[in-house]
């Protein structure tokens, strides 16, 4: 089955006062229908910028997509006009942002906001529109949807609002759903419910999903594959189980070791030494070299290529040079 989305060698640069930052530096990945790819990494590692590049909404004028291709069902989004992109956004690619508190317009009722994309995508009017909107709210498990349509955002809890945002994102329904840390500001029980809901929606509509997070617990729960980003590059990608059991890249290993575990109370949590790199002044060679416990001569000289370590698991690290 061909992938829904295929990102090939994507480069997005940010022009800042301190120089040009390669926010996304040669990222490639694919996601198929009903598959979830987790995108993890520290703040500033390029996760969000990668996804904004897919929908061509990188913050202008500072950011610019300078190379690569983004194939959605085989069509390159980077060659489309802005008008074509507007027709694609929401209809083919939905996105859920992090903060449910500000992702709804405070001056309009939920109903008006949910109806907007529905009427835009399906051209519905009147009763049919109203029913479809209520149906959407019901599909994200909002109790008594017809009444909730009359509510205003401030009258709903964070979890409810995030469900409304979810409902609007699947109004089309799209082929690809990008969720940018959608559960960060929800409390834990609501998080679990929301993740379950996303999985159901994915199953129902056959969505390909990209899930951005720094929470590895969520990755293990909801993702099929995971891509670890560092300084604008994917340093390791593979099936979740493999990555968790035998991480190949020292950065992935460090990330996994810094998760607090129940029962393991021996000593302190492991932190990753050093600071995230200054993206405007990346070292030649591997970006992680300054913080890497296994750093070698070669790491500082040359950037490591993609090396396949196991079935579906690829890393960029000299430790795994084929002999």
């Amino acid at each position, binding site marked *: 089955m061909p992938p829904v989305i295929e990102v090939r060698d994507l480069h997005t640069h940010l022009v800042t006062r301190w120089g040009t930052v390669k926010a996304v530096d040669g990222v490639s990945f694919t996601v198929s229908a009903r598959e979830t790819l987790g995108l993890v990494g520290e703040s500033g590692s390029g996760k969000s910028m990668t996804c904004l590049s897919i929908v061509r909404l990188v913050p202008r004028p500072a950011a610019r997509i300078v190379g690569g291709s983004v194939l959605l069902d085989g069509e390159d989004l980077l060659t489309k006009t802005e008008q074509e992109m507007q027709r694609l956004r929401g209809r083919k690619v939905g996105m859920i942002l*992090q903060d449910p508190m500000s*992702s709804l317009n405070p001056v309009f009722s939920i109903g008006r906001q949910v109806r907007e994309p529905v009427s835009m995508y399906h051209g519905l009017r009147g009763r049919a529109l109203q029913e479809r909107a209520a149906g959407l709210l019901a599909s994200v498990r909002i109790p008594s949807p017809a009444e909730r349509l009359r509510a205003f955002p401030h009258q709903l809890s964070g979890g409810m609002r995030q469900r409304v945002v979810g409902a609007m994102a699947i109004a089309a329904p799209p082929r690809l759903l990008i969720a940018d840390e959608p559960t960060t500001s929800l409390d834990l029980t609501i998080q679990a419910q929301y993740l379950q809901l996303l999985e159901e929606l994915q199953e129902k509509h056959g969505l390909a999903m990209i899930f951005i997070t720094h929470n590895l617990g969520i990755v293990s729960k909801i993702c099929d594959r995971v891509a670890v980003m560092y300084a604008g590059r994917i340093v390791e990608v593979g099936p979740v189980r493999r990555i968790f059991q035998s991480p190949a890249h020292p950065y992935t290993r460090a990330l996994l070791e810094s998760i607090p575990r129940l029962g393991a109370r021996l000593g302190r949590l492991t932190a990753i030494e050093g600071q995230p790199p200054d993206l405007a002044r990346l070292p030649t060679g591997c970006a992680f070299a300054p913080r890497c416990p296994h750093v070698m001569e070669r790491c500082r000289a040359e950037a490591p290529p993609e090396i396949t370590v196991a079935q579906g698991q690829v890393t960029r690290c000299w430790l795994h040079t084929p002999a």
Partner: protein
Amino acid sequence: MPGDTPGGGLVLAEVAAPTAPASRSRNVPYVSLGIITVFVLLAVLAPLLGLADPFNQSLRNRFKPPVWEEGGSWTHPLGTDRLGRDMLSRIVWGSRVSLAAGVLTVLVASAFGAAVGLVAGYYGGQVDTALMRMTDATMSFPVILLALILAVTVGPSFTNVVVAIAVILWARYARVIRGQVLTLMHLDFIAQARLAGAGAWRIITRHLFPNTLNTLVVLVTLQIGYVIIVEASLSFLGAGIPPPTPAWGSMIAEGREFVTSAWWVSMFPGLAILLVVLAFNLLGDWLRDTFDPKLRQL
């Protein structure tokens, strides 16, 4: 135990009840609304009130004092002016000019200014820079000077007054609305609308504009008072509404030579301006406190 708490607790309890500002902001300014309603009614119903003809001159009746002064009569409750025209009637008819100028000017200015602010804030970058330079330049130009130029070149008229003030006044709206849009643009619902496929027009009209309405209403109300004063100043200077049309500003001007002998000729139109402007300002303040207490700088 409340009874057991030492003195500190008592002090705290007293301090913790500063309800005055909050309750005041909820006090609807009935007096202001009343004044505005009265003047609007007077302006609208002026021809139906059975008042004396505001243009009717009668040199025998010039400088008649108001009814409560010696020599006054109920035929001219507020006295007459230099040409024997009825003051009350002229003030009522003058309210038409002042209110119409205030409302019309502010509507034109706010519509244009808001549009500029929305576009500048939404597009940012060079569009923003260009539009804001234009705004700054406009704001540094004195209204009175522009009106005088218009009056000299085109001749004074109601339209010119509205144009002269609106051409300068929009800049205030552009600035304030742009500032608001800049903060709104960082909120996720704008990003979310874009992600849902909304274009510039839809985002500006459906998402940004409705969120700036509160500010606009407050600013419009506050500015009506200001425009009434500017219009009166222009009429006072002879660059506003040309005589014999009754306008409060020109009425003050006509009476100023006789202030010592016939104080009412200048005083009553002045009082009318004071009342209306004060009413609009108080209403605007209340709207601001109620709608958005964060807008202190307006």
